[in-house]
């Protein structure tokens, strides 16, 4: 690893000042579980490193019955996984975290770091997209809110200016009769996943017709892909087995998956069919219970 100049701010303001001062040449390191791997391999060599792991003010989770969930950017994956509040109200987040990397990675790595890294194979973004999450970004010039959906721009590129920091993730309370599930094809539990699918189904109360559906894929394109055509197969209909199969097939056509040592693009496309169906089916079952 190349040498760098190192700062360990203790407050958000300090960190933002540093980012503003070294615009573009400074890289944030939080848990370092993604950044340090790249730096060790010599793929990134920043001149200035702003280590924000010590900003304890960003390590929190709050829940309000009306306003929903607010997660500080430096909350660790493990904290989210184990949180009783999350397990009770947003179980899919805890479930997703259980399959994310390993315990050691989750103990030190942060949700903010994961989102800002922008890996299209990542699990949190698709789940947060189905949950309609919003992100609070801050710089010295002010704050802005971004929908989780618009945050990913390209492989390893997100909508974050060089002088900005992710502060908080906000997840609204799901509508009633909504179920959310996450499924991922893993060779070993915790690996990056061949493909993954997050699905949210909302049913109209009374007649069980699908009022809303969201399907988001991981590792099926250069960003987490929202399979809108597949969603349209389900919305407004009484979902049955055939429709779920159709949604899977439509999603697989929307996908543009990569080909690498783990799987070919064709195989990933086939697996999109299977995993979209599995996730949507589970989401449907959960929606019926709520």
């Amino acid at each position, binding site marked *: 690893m190349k040498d760098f100049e190192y700062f360990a701010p203790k407050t958000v303001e300090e960190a933002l000042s540093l980012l503003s001062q070294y615009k573009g040449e400074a890289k944030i390191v939080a848990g370092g579980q993604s950044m340090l791997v790249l730096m060790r391999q010599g793929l990134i060599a920043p001149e200035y490193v702003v280590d924000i792991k010590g900003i304890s003010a960003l390590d929190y989770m709050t829940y309000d019955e009306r306003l929903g969930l607010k997660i500080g950017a430096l909350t660790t994956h493990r904290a989210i996984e184990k949180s009783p509040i999350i397990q009770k109200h947003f179980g899919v987040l805890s479930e997703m975290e259980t399959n994310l990397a390993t*315990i050691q990675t989750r103990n030190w790595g942060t949700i903010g770091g994961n989102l800002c890294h922008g890996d299209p194979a990542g699990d949190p973004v698709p789940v947060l997209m189905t949950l309609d999450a919003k992100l609070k970004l801050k710089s010295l010039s002010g704050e802005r809110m971004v929908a989780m959906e618009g945050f990913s721009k390209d492989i390893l590129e997100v909508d974050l200016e060089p002088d900005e920091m992710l502060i908080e993730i906000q997840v609204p309370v799901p509508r009633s009769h909504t179920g959310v599930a996450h499924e991922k094809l893993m060779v070993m539990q915790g690996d990056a996943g061949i493909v993954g699918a997050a699905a949210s189904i909302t049913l109209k109360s009374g007649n069980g017709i699908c009022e809303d559906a969201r399907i988001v894929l991981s590792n099926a394109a250069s960003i987490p892909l929202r399979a809108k055509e597949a969603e349209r197969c389900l919305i407004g209909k009484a979902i049955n087995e055939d429709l779920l199969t159709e949604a899977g097939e439509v999603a697989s056509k929307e996908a543009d998956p990569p080909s690498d040592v783990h799987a070919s693009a064709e195989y990933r496309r086939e697996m999109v069919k299977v995993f979209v169906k599995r996730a949507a089916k589970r989401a449907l079952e959960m929606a019926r219970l709520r």
Partner: protein
Amino acid sequence: MKGEPKELRLTVNGKVYELKVKPKALLNDVLRKDLKLTGAKRGCLESTCGVCTVILDGKAVRSCSVLALQANGHEVTTIEGLAQGDKLHPVQRAFIDHGAIECGFCIPGRVMMAKALLDENPNPSREEVKLAMQGVLCADSGYVKQIEAVEIAAEKMRGGE
């Protein structure tokens, strides 16, 4: 200034150390090179194998993926800190007695994972033990003896026999 050494103060196995390290130094580097605690190994160097695992503030972490300066003011436990004099920690004892050690390279990291697990959860299910063991790769064994050893140690620590 680039690479300028910074003050690092951390507690390792109950002892306080004060030293100056370059910002790019990883926790693994400082433990092995500066503090001569070579129990935490260096394996893949890309955060996939886990043989570098130590306990930081009660949590198992991969020391190859933590900047040493991030441990500033924190507490680290390594394999060297488990035994009390000649008396081995129950996990160490169980690994030896149950024949769970083959070449030994993954063992320090694995024992630390087990300790972190049992400190947090004295009565883990088999699934939970497996998950903890999964965090450190073993190229020799089939993990079976190691999982059993952890369960044996857990029972011992709970007061059983």
